């Protein structure tokens, strides 16, 4: 199954990120070059501490690089203002976290509406929930839902704004295999049906089979960047 790859959406060159944890200085990224193209589904693999989450955070404007350049559709984001970064996240980026990060005091519907409220041209909240198959559970609070359901709410929340790019940090990390596959199916669907670019961080190698491209990180550097000849459907992936 071949994939149609569009123009480059995010371009990163020589990204370095160091930060302090207490009294210790950690070098999370040491000179990374990375492109993400329109409609592409990239899996970022690597062991703990390899820098994949940091890379995702920098790409998504959650963090700023210590050095190096980053651009979105040609617009420089290497030294962005707080406002530019917020606008970037608000209009173009959808995030999905390992622990879902839903607001516990809001229902499924309200968690999605939270983003619909501030996005320029969102899809309807119900449509987003429909897309992840959770219309039935929309009035439940996070504490009343299973992990898989919560993650699907998080996906609905991420896609409701119709983002250019969806960044997923260990989206199945806290889920069992069966539920995890369900979540991957939804992500795959979003990629195919909405044409959203996806970058998925995982340390779970089998998941890579569903991607067109697999980038492996180690010690803050890119160790390999390969294209899969064939993209498996999420239902065929097993771990």
């Amino acid at each position: 199954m071949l994939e149609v790859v569009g123009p480059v959406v995010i371009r990163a060159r020589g990204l370095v990120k160091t930060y302090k944890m207490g009294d210790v200085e950690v070098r999370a990224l040491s000179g990374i070059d990375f492109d993400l193209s329109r409609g592409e589904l990239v899996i970022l693999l690597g062991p703990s501490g390899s820098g994949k989450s940091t890379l995702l955070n920098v790409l998504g404007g959650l963090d700023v690089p210590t050095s190096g350049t980053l651009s979105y559709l040609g617009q420089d984001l290497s030294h962005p203002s707080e406002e530019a970064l917020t606008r970037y996240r608000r209009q173009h980026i959808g995030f999905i976290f390992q622990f879902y990060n839903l607001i516990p005091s809001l229902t499924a519907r309200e968690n999605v509406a939270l983003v619909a409220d501030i996005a320029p041209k969102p899809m309807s909240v119900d449509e987003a929930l429909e897309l992840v198959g959770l219309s039935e559970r929309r009035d439940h609070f996070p504490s009343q839902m299973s992990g898989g359901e919560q993650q699907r709410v998080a996906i609905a929340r991420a896609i409701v704004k119709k983002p250019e790019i969806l960044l997923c940090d260990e989206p199945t990390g806290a889920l069992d295999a069966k539920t995890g596959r369900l979540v991957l199916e939804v992500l795959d669907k979003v990629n195919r049906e909405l044409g959203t670019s996806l970058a998925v961080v995982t340390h779970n190698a089998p998941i890579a089979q569903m991607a067109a491209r697999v980038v492996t990180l180690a010690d803050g550097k890119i160790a390999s960047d390969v294209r899969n000849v064939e993209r498996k459907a999420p239902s065929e992936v097993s771990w």
Partner: protein
Amino acid sequence: MKTLEKKLFRDLLRFRYQCLTIALVVGCGVGSFVSAVAASASMQASRDAFYADAHFADIFDHLQRAPRPVLDRLADLPSIAAVTGRVVDDFRLEVDGGSEPVVARFVSVGWPIEQGLNQTRIRPGRQVEPGSTNEIVVSEAFAEAWALEPGREITAIINERRAALRVVGIAVAPEFSFAAAARTGLPDPRHFGIVWMDEDALAKATDRVGTFNDVALKLAVGADVEETVRRVDLLLEPYGGLGAVGRADQPSAKLVDQKIAQLGKLARTLPVVFLCIASFLLYVLLSRIVGTQREQIATLKALGYRTGELTRHYVEFALVICLLGVAFGITLGTLGAHGLLAAYARYFKFPAFIFRFNAWAIVWATLIAFASGTLGAFFAVRRAVAVPPAEAMRPEAPPRYHSTFLDPLYRSATPIVRMVLRDVQRRPFRLLLSSASIALATAIVIAGSVFADSINEVLRLQFEVSHREDVTVTLDQARPWRAVRDIAHIPGVINAEAERVVPVRLRAGQRFRTTIIVGLRPHMDLHRLLDVKQRPLVLPPSGLSLSRVLAESLGVRVGDELEVDVLESDRRKLRARVAVLLDDLIGISAYMDAEELGRLLDETPRANVVLAAVEEHDVDDVMGRLNALPAVAAVSRPAFDSDLVRSEVVDELTVLSIMLALFATAIAVGVVYNNARIALELRSRDLATMRILGFTRGELSTVLLGEQAIQVVLGIAPGLVLGKAIGGLWLSTIDHELLRIPLTLSGASYVAAVCVVLFAAFASALIVRRRSDQLDLVAVLKARD
């Protein structure tokens, strides 16, 4: 922002008890502000309406006697719009058979009544008929004290003649809104009342036909008060004018104005305390909420929410609490204002109290409350929302503890105590603010006690230490010493001493004050002069001794010479040198050796006041005999006065004390409950771990509540000192010329204040402890931080 508002609402519900305790503190602040402002506005409105309606004069003067044509000369002064001349005199009354000494101020009613100044407003009954000789209208406070109603008969002793009078109406008047008895300067409606009577009838009864001895003047628009006072003085000088005063110095008007000013001071001080504490509590609560919602904030930022939007979200949280507090405060304030007005209605006799609820007060209260809430919230969230989302999503580094110079001290302590102390030491700022809040709570209670205790002390000094007589006898005129001996020989009288009291006007250049010179004999036992430190004062053998405030108002020092205009008998003019300045307690008085005073007046030693010590069981008998003596103008019992004043003052002070204790409780609960709840949330994991390790609930409580105990203990002592200072500030609002109150605080008041705060703190801590006892250990440990 609809969805974010839903989050706000649910967060508020989750922290509802903490929010409520803070709203309570905000409410107390807003309430005290609104009640003081509303009461002040209502008093002003009621006063202004009454003054305008009753044509209250601008200038007042009392004189010996002047023919009525002098009134036309006064009216001809360019700055005068209207003049009313009256006959005013004090006479003894016998109500209910004359068992108690009563003095009434008789005021003439001239005709046509609607053209006169200082009109009365009749409550029940009617005005006296023109030309009636036995009809009177009595003041409302006096009528209430004696349960007088129209139709009652009263006997007056006017110039040694008994007159049967009939009450036809009960009235209030602007010049007697606050009718203070001359002796105490405090309202004493049981023993001092106002009686209005037809002008001709009163003039005839007092041998003042065709004359007047009291005048009220209305100024023309734009006229200068001081200039007019000077001209009136000049004109009335030959007729024994006592010196005109403007409305600002008219005794009743002055006290009304002072009360309004006091309310203004209250409105400016008390709310500040509450709102500072509310601001701090909001800071503490929001810091904690923001701390626990660190990840939520990061998520919201990752989703594209702006720092400003998130700051606003948390500030709104504070504002909702403030709004709740404002609503509560307005309700409390309205009730408080009504309560204050009801209390004032007992002292200040206005025909109607107009309730003015100043809309601006609400706007201001809301704005001030919002400002304090925003301030607290802003500092709490400012840093948390500024953290880049990726960093905020990483678990917070464990709190930093360092070895400090205090560690050697901790070595002997148990691990539990060490945990508490290290925690306290790590957040010195929070400890400081918490302790400061507890200090303010304590201070509020103490300040109320200072007020009550000091007034009690003044009464004790005045009526038990300084005036030691059982009965005070005022003679109708200065009489030879024989009169004193006569009184001393009445069976039951143990001892009698005499004073010569002379009304005078003291002049120093342009300045003058009307007061009395009290002629005292050396070594008197029944009247001792005391200074502010309660030491007995000894009069020098010659010269005048002046109250320090009197000397200051005249601008004279020891050694300066004063002109003394005697305001009785031959109205001679004397000169006397200031010998000593006294730091006495009450009023502005001048004292002199009785013999020297006699020499200056060219009289053989005379007395017009007799002080008598009487066997306790003979008092009634002695009073009866004294009342029957023709030379006696009035008989009073200082013990009565003291009880009366106490009961009048104590009522108001009890209300004040209860209110302040409630306020203090609100603060102590707000501080301790909030801090302890937050400590519980922060510490729940530690506490659960410790429980599993085998620590008891009691030991856990020490960890949880130890810090609260430390801040309460640290706050109380400075609170006592601060409270005393605030109390002193409140005392300073009392007219200095009326009373110089020694700052007093009884041991019981200290204990009571400490108990109020400790109890409120303890109860709050207990509630939180119950929660900690119910910790679900497994759930707590499972929860992902």
